[in-house]
């Protein structure tokens, strides 16, 4: 196999790899490698003009445009059910433990936030699963301590699990009666995140480990 053929095979292999990449940054990187190898291949096949054009357009300009596009800040849609201490809605904006965590996440990763209000927990969870929203705030529960933002009790009422704050609200609205509670276990409130933002899990763990969540919590719950 001569050098030209080897470079052509490498280009073939890299082009398939580029298409198969799921992460955009990885795809741009492989595309950059493909162009650089193409420059070598054109040079070997004694086509200097094409090699120069490929170096300028393929390796440099195209990569530059891709990087510019990737740097444009993304948008995150936050679904929420207003709940005391966690995600409170005021005429002038939002407040609460979950809100501060989501706001810090957006600041750190350069996202722009959009909010969508939900009335029902099932609709909120469904919207998160379908990818309509990226983050879910309100009575989102977890049993993983790493992901917890506030301790709570999860009560069993019939075949449903209801958290402490939602139960309080439902009792005050007259929807439920405190005597309906059958059993409870310890759990945590968290912020739900979609599969398209796995970095949120790392962010929550980092906030928990450096004590940032405890500092936010102290502002609201004493």
């Amino acid at each position: 196999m001569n050098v030209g053929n080897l470079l052509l095979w490498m280009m073939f292999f890299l082009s398939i790899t580029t298409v198969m990449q799921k992460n955009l940054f990885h795809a741009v990187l492989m595309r950059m490698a493909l162009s650089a190898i193409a420059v070598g291949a054109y040079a070997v096949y004694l086509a200097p003009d094409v090699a120069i054009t490929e170096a300028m357009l393929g390796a440099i300009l195209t990569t530059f445009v891709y990087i510019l596009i990737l740097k444009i800040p993304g948008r995150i849609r936050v679904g929420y059910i207003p709940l005391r201490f966690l995600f409170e809605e005021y005429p002038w904006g939002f407040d609460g433990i979950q809100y501060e965590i989501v706001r810090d996440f957006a600041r750190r990763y350069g996202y722009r936030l959009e909010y969508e209000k939900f009335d029902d927990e099932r609709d909120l969870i469904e919207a998160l699963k379908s990818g309509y929203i990226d983050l879910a705030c309100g009575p989102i529960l977890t049993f993983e301590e790493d992901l917890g933002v506030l301790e709570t009790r999860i009560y069993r009422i019939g075949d449903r699990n209801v958290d402490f704050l939602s139960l309080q609200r439902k009792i005050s609205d007259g929807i439920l009666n405190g005597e309906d509670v059958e059993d409870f276990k310890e759990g945590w409130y968290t912020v739900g995140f979609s599969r398209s933002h796995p970095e949120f899990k790392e962010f929550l763990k980092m906030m928990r480990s450096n004590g940032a969540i405890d500092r936010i919590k102290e502002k609201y719950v004493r």
Partner: protein
Amino acid sequence: MISIIIGVSIMTVGMIRATFERRFQVKLHFVGLSDVVGTTLVIIGLIWEKMADLELLLALVFLVIWSPYLTHMLMKAYLSKVGKR
């Protein structure tokens, strides 16, 4: 000829490592180095063997100046998007 062979070998090793490496930073490191050095060696080898014109040096100049800069920009964009972990 030896320069061309070394250049292609470096590109091959860089490509294989970049393809099978999972971490973006390591991928970028391999691609950024192997492609510039590999292409440079191939083009210098071709000119040395008098198989190509000096015209090819222009392509080399573009690559040598811009490729490290683009690698740097790509890493900056990645860090600003994903965060410094």
